[in-house]
């Protein structure tokens, strides 16, 4: 029941989080920027529009947006609920492989539309995903190692340093998963630099609405996941989420997009953080 309420809330506020971040980034760049509610309007507009599908494609391209949204909703449901109930530690692997399902479907669609922009983006997306898999799974597991029977947040309270390291690793992975600077740029209009946007270049109208909604939900779920791994009670979890929403636009403002082949270093740092977190836990340094 709690989980159901959580999904509904997450889906409802996911576009608001995205809109707020757009708005903050615009302010930081000295632009008036859109209202935080703009994403809802965009989604509504896109949903009402017809979809253009490239000729000669298979049913995969039509079905892909639905699959991707299904994956995002399931992912949101797997995040341990804020109010009670725990995630079993092994769900970390299920989560990572679930995200892989959504990604692989989009990448196959990119091959199907025969655009080299899409395939180039697909190549980068799969490469980065194969590099983030290890830090993602290790970071998610870290919360569950010290006390397999406990939900993530409770174990976070036991070892604050380890939890902060794990959450940090998760946030670095999230930069890639949600297509943010310095890994990717959501706002780019230049196809050759696109990763996630390039992948969905051929989707339009209601199909694009589904994919964008999926992106918002996945991002919100990542926020909640990282917040749940940090020490604190349910109320503080919400504070963490607000902090992420405020912090990410600042990061995007401060940094430029990294060179493609420097991004793996970022993931290497994520892996080191996650490994350090796991290391602290298994070394039995409970107070940390």
């Amino acid at each position, binding site marked *: 029941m709690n989980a159901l309420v959580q999904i509904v809330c997450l889906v409802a506020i996911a576009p608001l989080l995205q809109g707020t971040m757009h708005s903050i980034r615009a302010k930081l760049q000295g632009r008036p920027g859109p209202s935080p509610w703009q994403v809802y309007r965009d989604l509504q507009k896109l949903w009402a529009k017809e979809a253009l599908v490239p000729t000669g494609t298979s049913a995969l391209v039509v079905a892909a947006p639905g699959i991707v949204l299904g994956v995002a909703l399931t992912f949101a449901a797997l995040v341990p609920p804020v109010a009670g109930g725990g995630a079993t530690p092994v769900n970390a692997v299920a989560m990572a492989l679930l995200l892989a399902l959504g990604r692989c479907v989009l990448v*196959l669609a990119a091959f199907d539309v025969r655009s080299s922009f899409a395939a180039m983006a697909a190549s980068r997306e799969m490469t980065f995903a*194969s590099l983030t898999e290890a830090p993602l799974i290790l970071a998610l597991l870290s919360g569950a190692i010290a006390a397999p029977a406990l939900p993530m947040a409770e174990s976070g309270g036991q070892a604050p340093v380890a939890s902060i390291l794990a959450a940090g690793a998760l946030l670095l992975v999230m930069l890639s998963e949600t297509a943010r600077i310095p890994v990717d740029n959501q706002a780019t209009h230049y196809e050759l630099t696109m990763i996630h946007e390039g992948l969905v270049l051929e989707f339009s109208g209601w199909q694009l609405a589904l994919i964008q909604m999926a992106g918002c939900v996945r991002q919100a779920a990542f926020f909640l996941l990282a917040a749940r791994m940090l020490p604190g009670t349910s109320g503080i979890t919400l504070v963490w989420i607000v902090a992420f929403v405020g912090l990410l636009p600042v990061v995007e403002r401060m940094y430029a997009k990294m060179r493609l082949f420097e991004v793996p270093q970022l993931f290497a740092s994520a892996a080191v953080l996650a490994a350090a977190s796991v290391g602290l836990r298994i070394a039995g340094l409970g107070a940390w």
Partner: protein
Amino acid sequence: MSLDSLFANAEPRRALGFAALLSTAFVALLAIMLHGTPGLVLTPPIEPNVLRLDFGSTTLALPFFALIVLVVPAVAGWGLTRGTATDGFQLALFVLAMLGVLLAQSVAAFFFAWEMMSLVSAFLVGTHHERRDVRRALLSFVLISQLGALCILAALALLGAHAQSFRFVDIARLAPILPAGMRSAIIALALIGFGSKAGLVPLHFWLPRAHPVAPANASALLSGVMLNVALYGLVVTCFTLAGPVPLVWGVVILLVGLLTAITGALYAAVDSDFKRLLAYSSIENLGIIASVAGLAIVAIGLHEPALAELAFVALLLHAVSHGVFKSLLFLGAGNVAEAAHTTDLEHLGGLRRTLPLTAPLVLIGCAAAAALPPLTGFASEWLVFTSFVRLLPAVPSGLAALIAIAIGILAATSGLAALAFVKLFGVAFLGEPRTIHKVAEERVDPSFIGLGWLAFLCIAFGLAPSVPVTLLIGVASTLSGSAIFDPGPLPTLPVLLGALPFLGAIVALAVARARGVRLVPTWTCGSPVTSRSQYTATAFSKPVRRIFGFVLFPDHVEVRDIGASRWFPIRIRYTFTTRYIVDDVARNVAAAAQRFARRTRIVQAGLLRVYLAYAVAAVLILLVIAR
């Protein structure tokens, strides 16, 4: 009278081959049904009974019999319409040899069946012996097979000498009192012997050459079943014949497995040949299976029988699941090779239009191999990860660090495997054809029943993993001595993960049908979409090649045909290469062996009087020793 003249007409011969191969599946079924009954003993009248041949159906072999029962009929059905006429008989002999290995209960029986398996598979690999690369692959295959067989023979001989008996029952009974040094020697020999056959790094280099050059149905059995039989040998040695294995050997096997898994995945990710990519993926999966075997040894060493049982179930499930999806993929590769006359991904493309039946079946196989939910690869890989994760709190911190690193490596492996299989399907089946050859239309025939059956198994084992798991628990508990198996959320997990994406696909298709979609050309900055503008397999894996350049050593050769002006070249040809470190080492070792052989050839002068002198010397030395 030769078989050829007996079956001058090819079609009845093909049907007979099919029947022969199918009957081996019944033999496997019989082996399952005869489980628990006293075995068969063939005793030649020689003392001591070194050559006695004992056969019997043991619990540990049951999952492997089941795999043969599931896979062989599909492979046989494929060969009925698509293979060459002699394939059926050769494959039947091959499966019988593998059944012999699984049934063997004495040293001689095991080694006889093992050598038979190696020899028959050598003939399968050498099917196209008119090609030079096939002959080279065959040579390294045979050499490594025989090197491995010698190690296995040495290990079994040591065991037999210790037990003063060559029956596996006696050997297993006396295994706990093996001297420590001897036990280590046996495990090391078994790891080299069985590991070289299972394609464990660094003795894997022959596999990506040998497996792809065999006909598709032979490749399916080589990769899908024989590799598992090789691993069965390692498991039997470690847990029955020479057990309990010291913990440190568990760590060694775990490390070898991890190295194999990541190596296989990395080379699969950058390879651009359909069948060779599948062979590298086999290396990856066998590495995963070996690492879980190592984990099980560690768990037993730490007196955690329940966790060892979990690891065994994961091992067996992944072995069965890999056997099923890899057979499916190799048979699919056979269909591709038949229609397109090539398996080079650079020349394939758009096959979903010409092969509309093969495409969805291969897609299911690829998704299972990429461990995507809710297919069988997901269920088994999830269980593999879970057995690592659950052991983490139970081990001392040094070992825990190793297991945490292992989880990270397995995660990277699964990421790279997903990349490899998305590339495989995306490049070969989607988009536009890249080849200049004409791709033949799909031949719809009964062989698709077999492919469909394997694809059905991929889905069924994925959606209802509790069915195979329940059967495997019984096998696993005999090894670990535990009967507490906690599958966690596994029984419902695949459905839980797969339901919404499946529903989403249905809804998206329904909305598209209701509202209609407008068909437009693909947008590529105004230039037309041609097969030449598409991304290729090599281009797709370029970032991986570059990021992992420190092991792959990517290089390219550029050939410019400049013609009249160097600024307007007529033709530019790039060739991309990656270096295989292990191959280089193997080549050096082979060259050194040849040099050594050439030097020692001096003693073989070919002069009668020299040989007589050797004989006299030998007799003298014997007399001195025996005095």
